[in-house]
């Protein structure tokens, strides 16, 4: 075989020829995917690490877009439909970009008894946002949770990951005003 044929990267016949695709590089060039990659390397691309990987991806991106789900599916060699099925199963995964701030009100039994519903209603009215949605100005996402396991602190409001116990509607609104910079 001539040198030119070798340059062409072809063998006359026989052995299998594969180009190692390596880690699929995301065409968007978004370097946040590197953070997901770091986790994937840590867990050796194990398929049973799907849920952990989705948590990492959601921490990194704030929510799970179709793109991110496809990326995870490809990396873990799982059918995208299955990854989507797992992600939609769990309450904590979200598919919409969240607002700047996230307020989660616990509506578990203890919090419910202590008036969590009033807190939800007042926050929703004051900030013009429906439960599970983000306000029109993109500042606040309001969510509810079943039980956060801090029933002794009921009613509980979680603002951007920080737990605030023994809340009242007015207290929760004041907290939000402080966090959102007193817009309202």
């Amino acid at each position, binding site marked *: *075989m*001539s040198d*030119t*044929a070798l*340059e*062409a*990267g*072809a*063998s*006359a*016949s*026989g*052995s*299998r*020829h594969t*180009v190692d*695709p390596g880690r699929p590089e995301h065409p968007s060039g978004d370097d946040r995917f590197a953070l997901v990659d770091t986790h994937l390397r840590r867990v050796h691309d194990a398929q049973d690490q799907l849920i952990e990987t989705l948590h990492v991806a959601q921490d990194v991106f704030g929510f799970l877009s*179709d793109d991110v*789900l*496809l990326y995870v599916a490809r990396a873990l060699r799982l*059918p*995208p*439909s*299955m*990854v*989507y*099925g797992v992600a*939609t*199963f*769990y*309450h904590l995964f979200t598919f919409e970009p969240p607002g700047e701030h996230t307020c989660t009100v616990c509506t578990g039994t203890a919090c419910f008894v202590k008036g969590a519903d009033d807190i939800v209603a007042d926050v929703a009215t004051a900030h013009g946002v429906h439960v599970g949605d983000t306000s029109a100005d993109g500042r606040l996402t309001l969510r509810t949770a079943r039980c956060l396991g801090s029933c002794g602190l009921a009613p509980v409001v979680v603002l951007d990951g920080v737990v605030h116990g023994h809340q009242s509607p007015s207290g929760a609104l004041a907290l939000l005003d402080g966090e959102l910079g007193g817009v309202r």
Partner: protein
Amino acid sequence: MTATENAGTPPTDDAPVPDPNAVQITVNGVAHTARKGQLVIEAAADAGVYIPRFCYHERMTPVGKCRMCLVEADSGRGPAVTVSCMVPVMPDMKVETESPMAKRMQEGVLELLLANHPLDCPVCDKGGECPLQDQTMTHGPGESRFVEEKRHYEKPIPISDLVFLDRERCILCDRCTRFADEVAGDALIHFISRGNTTQVMTFPDEPFASYFSGNTVQICPVGALTAKPYRFKARPWDLEEIESTCTTCAVGCRTVVQSSRDELLRSQGVDSDPVNWGWMCDKGRFGFEAVRTERVTEPLVRTAHGLEPTGWNAALRSAVQLIEDGKLAAGPSAVAVIGGARGSNEDAFAWARLAHDVIDTPHVYAQMGDGLPVGMLAMPRATIDDTAAASTIVLLGPDLKEELPVLYLRVRDAVQKRRVRIVEFTPRESGLTSLAWKSAVYEPGGQVEAVRAALADPEIADQLAAGPVVVIAGRSNLAESSGATVQAVQTLLAGVPGATVLPAFRRGNVVGALQVGMRPRPGGLDTRGILQAAADGKIECLVLVGADPLADFPDTDLARRALAGARRIVSVDTHLSASAQHADVVLPAAAFGEKSGTTTNLEGRVTTLGRKVTAAGTSRPDWMIATAIARGLGTDLGFRSVDDVTDAIARMVDGYEGVTRDALADSADGVLSAPPATIAAIDPVEVEVPVRNSYDYRLVVTRKLYDAGVTVSNSPSLAHLAPGQRVHLHPLDVERVGVQPGADVRVSSSRSAAVMRVEADPTVLRGTAWIAFNQPGGNVGDLIDSTAIVTDVRIENL
């Protein structure tokens, strides 16, 4: 005691040895002997007791999802609620399926399943054949306590081009999703969400584009999945049906053909254990649409104004005249017959008798130059079951997923469930590559080297020596001569004594046609030879029996020259194909579902074809046309009915002795035929593969399931699924050509040049170019020279 009993040591006493695999149980108080490991639901079925079920399917792993099969079973610790599709039988188990407890459980499950079911049975396609409906009638509580609002979803949404999903009707039995993942390997649908909102869905914007999606519609126990071609077409009680065999490809899936008001409306898979296990591919399932689309309905004869309709008498007289004139002009060998693979064994046999005995020409061939030589049939043959039971399957042929889809399912099952190992030789990654134990991707012409290298590999040699080896051998590339593949198969068989061959011949009844006589006599030409002779002006009369060389012969240029060079052309066809448009006489033939008879699949299994609808217009079965032409030529073939022909085949064809009408009537799974002894083995082939110029790409041309052929292009539901013509190159080669993927490039061979889109495709070997054959919007056949060992093309930026 069977195989383990040693003939040298007779049993010591006459008492029957207890079967170690027998398990004694009672079902509803009746004693029954079950097999060890058998599920309760199966054992009960054997005992004649039907346990209601939705999720359980005998060809898939049980999941125990629907809870409909709850029974009361006592295996020694008192009666317990038992999921009969998940629990194997245990000694002395007492199963009660009709006790008050069992009845209460069944009623409870049905009440729950119906809580959210919309009960829109009057407008549901499944109504009348719906397991949910039936079991509600037999096992349901009669009344529901649920008064709450049912859940609501958008009514049917398309999850693919062929399948619609109605989530309100779905009972979440996991049959379709399990089928997609476990059987088809296309896990494109999955349960999403949770609790009350759980639903079957695809990934967003990724349709359920599986070649096997129609099976999910068939196994759906409610009307949640419906297929586009059948939606709102008929009610089940208006359907008439007959069992038949699909002739779309050579696997020969058993099917039941259903019609209403003399129109084919649906095909459903029938569970034939040695063949298709109830599955079908979408082309076979929905291809019946072509039977009622754009048919030739009356004979056509060429006049000064082109092809004009005429009566049968006049057309037959013309056809006879053309054949006689051809014989008179240059003797019987100036007449050639191509085709016969589309019809039944009877059609092929009658045409073989006409060609060989009446016309007396040696030039007869059923293949279209896209298969392997007929001598492949003389190799020691394996059945599909042998293949699935082998320890190693060697793939040396086409991509089974594209060409013989249900065989792909069987091989896939063998790999997944029976741990069979695949050693694959392929010119590009195939549908089975991901399942293969070893996969050698070779450059066209390099398969012999690849096989030699594999045989020399100690690990592969050990595997091949470990147990039965079956070679699935077929034409993997239409742009190379069949010689290299034949030599590779011969090398393999020489290296692995005892290996058997499953011939991966593709076209419907091609094995049957070849076996009953549509093959050249000594001195006769094959299809390439016939077309070459026609192009050289040596064929006075060319008869095309359901053959369309312009679409199917790989070398389109030769086919075109042949049709121009043949002085007279008689075409017998169901549709006015590109080649039939060149004919002097076109005789309309009856199509699938319009004629009865028998067909032979690739393993030699003969099964029956059913006639369900009246033939379109005045079209007739091919055997009848052959008989009429023979009579016109002065010979009575002696066939008065299709049964006469079936009997004549059993009487006269070597290998079909056992294929009598009685035997076929007795055996639901068909009768195996043997290849006739007169089919000679192929002499050792030695192919000299030319070295590729490094500027060129070696061409790989293979078929896709959906193409521009008659079946797909005349089936409105399938026609748009053909992917179209593209040239696929390795991503690095696309860069080398200097274009972006998706751009147009010029592809030129020694024959011709064409402009088409280029795709970057990592499954293609570097230095090769892959183009799908016979796609809409271009014909790669123009680039192929059928005399060459391999085809090299140059690919240039425009």
